[in-house]
């Protein structure tokens, strides 16, 4: 199975550990991720000021995927969500689609319905299945406790992600984590938004949003918070120190990508999965996987 890899803006620059681990996991599962270096942005950052332009930008990516007859596989939840939503709008609103087509034409592109948009983790769950995934596991992570963070655009709006998982009672990431032998913990702020969306508008508010989850997990004590989106990573890992300072407390919540957890269980070394790029490192986990 092949997919057109959609890296987006942040991942290829700031979250190389995510990209590394995702590529490794795909390789271990026999999935081919095709690169298209010109894909660029998904359009999400423009939505609030000019959603029509954002839609054209997303449609551009969809059209490029259609040309190659490949599903679009995104690492960033916001990208996956924006692209999937764009496909939904283009398929359901003919007048918006006409407007988009007009603006795509000068680029030599044309939208064709039916392009599948998948977040990488959904892609592997659907393509490989839990049995296939279990078969790819080489190292048990038993004894480690991860707190899954689903974030917002991985599962919502559910009209667009359609039945893959229940955003109100999500379980897909926990399922992936449990496949490694590790424990997926349930916790009160499980469904909290990371606050990344308001970071530009109100830094203090964004920090308070992220802080709720960090405080809970800090007290609970977990191996790591497991994320699936570079935005969420920015808030929980990148901003962790700033948030701690703001709250005049100490926070030490390691943050890893779900792909890194899967990679470790598939037998890759922490090095190969870019764990040294993680800022708040799960030391015990790294140590255990070095042997």
């Amino acid at each position, binding site marked *: 199975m092949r997919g057109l890899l959609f*890296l*987006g*803006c*942040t991942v*290829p*620059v*700031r979250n*190389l550990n995510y*990209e*590394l681990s995702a*590529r490794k996991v795909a390789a271990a599962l026999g999935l081919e991720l095709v*690169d298209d*270096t*010109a*894909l*660029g*942005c998904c359009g999400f*950052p*423009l*939505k*609030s*000021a*000019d*959603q*029509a*332009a954002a839609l*054209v*930008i997303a449609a*551009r990516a969809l059209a490029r995927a259609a040309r190659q007859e490949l599903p679009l596989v995104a690492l960033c939840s916001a990208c996956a969500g924006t692209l999937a939503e764009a496909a939904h*709008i283009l398929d359901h*609103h003919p007048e*918006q689609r006409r407007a988009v087509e007009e*603006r795509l034409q*000068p*680029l030599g592109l044309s939208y064709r319905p039916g392009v599948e948009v998948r977040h990488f983790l959904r892609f592997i769950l659907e393509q490989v299945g839990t049995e296939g995934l279990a078969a790819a596991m080489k190292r048990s992570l038993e004894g480690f406790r991860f707190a899954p963070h689903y974030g*917002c*655009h991985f599962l*919502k*709006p*559910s009209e667009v992600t359609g039945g893959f998982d229940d*955003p*109100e009672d999500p379980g897909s990431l926990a399922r992936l984590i449990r496949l490694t032998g590790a424990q997926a913990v349930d916790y009160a702020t499980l*469904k*909290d*938004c990371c*606050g*990344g*969306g*308001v970071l*530009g*508008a*109100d830094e203090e*508010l*964004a920090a*308070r*949003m992220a802080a*709720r989850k960090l405080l809970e997990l800090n007290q609970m004590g977990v191996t790591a918070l497991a994320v699936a989106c570079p935005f969420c990573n920015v808030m929980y890992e990148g901003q962790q120190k700033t948030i701690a300072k703001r709250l005049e407390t100490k926070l030490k919540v390691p943050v890893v990508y779900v792909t890194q957890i899967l990679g470790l269980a598939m037998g890759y070394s922490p090095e190969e999965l*870019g764990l040294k790029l993680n800022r708040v490192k799960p030391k015990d986990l790294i140590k255990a996987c070095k042997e």
Partner: protein
Amino acid sequence: MIRLNQCDPAFKYEVAATPGGEGITTCFACAACSARCLVGELKPEYDPRRIIRLTLLGRREEVLSSPLIWLCSTCYSCAEVCPQQVRFTDVLTAIKNLAARAGYAPPSTRATARLLARQGRLLEVGEFENQKRSDLGLPQVEGAPEDFQRILGITPQAEPEEEA
């Protein structure tokens, strides 16, 4: 005191006619969205229901000029719990688009457009970044800024350099 006779009854239709805003009028004020809004929980002056009500009342300027409308984290929780399918996240996107058209957008939104027009992505991928990528065994990344310039109708040369 809000006088309804001085409000703009057409405002809600304007929002409803903007993509994403279609659901605005169906709100029956059940408060489920507000209950699930994390932004609102932490910042009480922000309340999805309040923005909907002001819109329905026709408080055009108050809504469009409010800095609160830019605080949505687009987490879609409100849309998920709404029994009337108002889809507040999308409604607010429609409102923000109207606000931007009316000149109320925060400066960062213009900067975003310029960045995309220049780089095809928000973060620049230059030699330094690609070097780092190749050190890690990752393929090179480029951009296609021309496409973005065409879509956005911006040529980076014509635009003055960033103001701030």
